[in-house]
């Protein structure tokens, strides 16, 4: 493997070949196909069970955003850009942030009884079940959504700028 790489570097027509090797590698693609759904499902699980087990919105969001990186490794920048749109991702991130603020301000909206910003006003359910802990559950979702779109957008931005440099 190592010698292989070296030979590529030493050969004069590196540019085209290195591009080819990045995109259509069977091993990487098939591995990615296996790993991708696992990453997404694990991320969703971590986000949903943030109030029950270690983890939460941030961790799950980053796990799902890792899928974008995996996609890039497997299918190259064109493949990623076909699936995701940077502007739309950024807009979704703002939506996530607005949702977070909205959930936090539920306390103000219900604020008749002296509730305040960030007050946990939704019914809390039985501790230990999935739909418990009031706003915490929903905040996990908002933050998870925000982080996955945000980190995805970040990866895409950096990747696309790297590619535009090469051309």
């Amino acid at each position, binding site marked *: 493997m190592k010698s292989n790489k070296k030979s590529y570097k030493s050969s004069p027509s590196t540019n085209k070949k290195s591009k080819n090797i990045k995109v259509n590698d069977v091993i990487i693609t098939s591995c990615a196909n296996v790993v991708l759904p696992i990453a997404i499902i694990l991320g969703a699980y971590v986000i949903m069970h943030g109030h029950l087990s270690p983890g939460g919105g941030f961790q799950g969001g980053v796990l799902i955003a890792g899928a974008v990186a995996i996609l890039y490794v497997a299918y190259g920048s064109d493949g990623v850009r076909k699936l995701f749109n940077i502007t739309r991702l*950024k807009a979704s991130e703002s939506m*996530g942030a607005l949702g977070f603020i909205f959930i936090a301000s539920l306390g103000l909206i219900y604020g008749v009884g002296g509730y305040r910003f960030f007050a946990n006003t939704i019914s809390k359910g039985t*501790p230990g079940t999935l739909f418990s802990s009031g706003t*915490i559950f929903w905040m996990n979702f908002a*933050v998870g959504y*925000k982080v996955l779109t*945000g980190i995805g*957008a970040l990866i895409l*931005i950096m990747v696309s700028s790297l590619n535009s440099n090469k051309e």
Partner: protein
Amino acid sequence: MKKAVVWFTITTLTVFAVYVSTKMISFGSSYNGIANVIVNDTVGKTGAINAVTAIVFDFRGYDTLGESFVLFTAITAAAAVLRKPVHSIISKGKGGK
């Protein structure tokens, strides 16, 4: 000269850091501080059995809000830095147009 300052800085900070770590509070058997209060009341007050999440999203939710804004800011800043620049935005000597 510069090297001497580097080594002076590194040595001083290391020495003081090691000295300070020996002076850090020795751990008692009971909690003290806000952790005590928080851990005792987490389930009853927030309904979350994960105390860390309860702190992150409820007790110190405002910090988490700030944290997600940091992420948002950093991503916006990265997008602004890496955006396609408009060259010669301020044209030289063309003022007054």
